[in-house]
């Protein structure tokens, strides 16, 4: 009875668990070993992209742009991220980047503060931190790559609608909530632009769909009823523009009232193809990731420190200058239309 069955099975359970562990780890280890092995090897710049969560088409697009940039400058690219966008979920991944001695960490923050101490630790371990898409509080990062300025967004929306209605007639705005900070700032700028540069275009109404699909849909219907001469609707929110386009696409106003604003290609593809919407704007996430990767490299190479006035070149996008608050602006918003919408899957 030296080796009882009980004892054997205890050992057996242990061995099986071990076997599972080592086989599972061994298999996946070969995937990651090349990049983690390169983590500390001399001059090669390692760039880690940490989106809000994995499996999000928007970040798939931006990280693809980042990967393109990293392969252009001969660095090592890796993308990691949590499966849910909760405030602390990114912290273990920031820690891992610090442990690996990654040169540049490019991150879209789930929370402006909760990941702050982890980022500070990573920076003191020598990692440069670039935020993109969603910023942290400024003291936690070296640089923020901003997708668009309020002026740029207001201008592109006014430009699109005035071009589509041939610079004359009535337009209305379908916004998000009445107290939405971003939208209200844009609306203010749009009003100023219309008053100054487009005397024949009249803004007759601003309604609020609360970023709710059904409310936005109903408000669109109400707008068309109360303003029979309406020629254009601007919706500076992705929920609003999709709801407005859905209403117009099945109403008799289709072809008479133009819809434009800020939208995503996946939501708007159908309406661009059926002619309800001719063009709408947003930024190009691929360019955003591409620029953020080059910004990370410039920081890691110590060509810039991220202070105002620093300049660096971002491959095909050209030369960029760091502005106030250690921020780089991607540029003017990107206009999507029938000719280019199929290149974008987000």
């Amino acid at each position, binding site marked *: 009875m030296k080796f009882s*069955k009980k004892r054997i099975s205890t050992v057996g359970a242990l061995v099986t668990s071990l076997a599972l562990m080592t086989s*599972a780890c061994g298999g996946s280890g070969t995937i990651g070993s090349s990049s983690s092995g390169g983590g500390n090897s001399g001059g090669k710049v390692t760039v880690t992209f940490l989106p809000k969560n994995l499996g999000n088409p928007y970040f798939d697009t931006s990280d693809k742009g980042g990967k393109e940039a990293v392969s252009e400058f001969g660095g090592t690219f890796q993308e990691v991220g949590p499966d849910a966008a909760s405030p602390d979920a990114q912290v273990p991944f920031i820690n891992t980047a*610090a442990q690996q001695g990654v040169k540049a960490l490019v991150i879209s923050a789930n929370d402006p503060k*909760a*990941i702050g101490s982890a980022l500070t630790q990573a920076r003191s371990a020598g990692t440069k931190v670039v935020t993109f898409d969603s910023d942290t509080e400024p003291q936690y990062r070296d640089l923020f790559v901003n997708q668009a300025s309020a002026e740029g967004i207001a201008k592109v929306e006014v430009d699109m609608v005035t071009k589509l209605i041939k610079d004359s007639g009535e337009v209305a705005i379908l916004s998000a909530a009445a107290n939405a900070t971003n939208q209200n700032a844009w609306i203010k700028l749009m009003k100023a632009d219309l008053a100054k540069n487009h005397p024949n275009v009249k803004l007759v109404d601003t309604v609020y769909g609360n970023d709710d699909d059904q409310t936005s849909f109903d408000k669109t219907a109400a707008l068309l009823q109360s303003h029979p001469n309406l020629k254009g609707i601007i919706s500076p929110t992705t929920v609003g523009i999709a709801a407005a386009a859905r209403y117009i696409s099945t109403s008799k106003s289709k072809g008479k009232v133009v819809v434009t604003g800020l939208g995503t290609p996946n939501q708007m593809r159908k309406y661009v193809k059926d002619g309800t919407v001719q063009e709408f704007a947003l930024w190009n996430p691929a360019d955003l990731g591409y620029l953020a990767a080059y910004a990370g490299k410039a920081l890691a190479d110590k060509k810039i420190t991220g202070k105002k006035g620093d300049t660096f070149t971002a491959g095909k996008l050209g030369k960029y200058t760091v502005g106030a608050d250690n921020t780089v602006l991607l540029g003017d918003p990107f206009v999507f239309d029938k000719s280019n919408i199929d290149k974008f899957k987000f």
Partner: protein
Amino acid sequence: MTMTRSYPAHAHPLWRRVLMTREVAVIALLVVVVLWASATIPNFSGPLTFPFLILDSAPILLIALPMTLVIVTGEIDLSVASVVGLSSVLVGMLHQDGMSIPLAGLIALVVGVLCGLLNGFLVAYVGLPSLAVTIGTLALYRGVAVGLLGTTAVTDFPFKWTNLIQQGFAGGRLPFVLVPIVVLAVVFAALLHFTSFGRGLFDIGLNAEAAHFSGVNVARTKLTVFVLAGAVSAFAGVYYTLRYGSARGDNATGLELQVIAAVLLGGVSIFGGRGALHGVLGGVLLIAVISSALRLENVTVNVINIIIGLLLVLSVMSTSLLGWASKMRRGAGVRGDHARPQKRRVTSSPLQ
């Protein structure tokens, strides 16, 4: 029954009863994984690994202690993560109103105790199933937390405190949070394994009615473990708030499942009556070390989840397999010529 006197009280010598257990198997596996990772994974043996591991898993380590007691009695507490969130929100709001961090933390602790009292009262005195009660309070406490602070966050905590949490002994290699973890672990281990209260917990888990008739105050004991769970969860909430410098209603959402998974991996039976704290601590650290090592290898989070899930299933299965194997052995023993007499079997069967 007098016949049993001629046989020793335990079937196996002490060393074997201590070493040949699932708890030790988990700890051995932990040691093996640490050695394997140190040898093969770049940067795992670096100075940052251990402090990060402790800082990130501290809330799970803390809450796993009272959760072990709850599960040993055959109950469950799913509301712990919501108590963490509520405590975090309270610390944030009270601090925003000018209260000092220690005082705000103390009030959060009191609220944690109240949350535990409500859970415990409904389970122990009203007699409702803890699964249903704590699913309800999971939503209730989380709802209050989110309702109090809405979608905003309190983030202006004093640097003195948020910085202190990141620091530690030996140049930061041993985070300060290890102090409450070690102290509470010792207290809970003593409570569970070396007091009559602790033995009462196992009795209740095996058979509450029998425990009652042998003099255990079942209701009061159950109430106590739920209060302990509420208090420690609230403490973890204070830690969480300062660690991340952010009080939000959705803080620590889903943490309860990570805690319960670690407790079960550590060898505690979900049916109650069986488990040990060293196994639970091993279980928490095993999951943390595997995750940390695999992240360093750039394994994606989904694959990590699959591996930990498989490990958990396998570990739970091994308990059943062990039980089955020992039953088979006893069955075989009757027929075998050198088996113990049948009476030994009779005395041991009530423990099944």
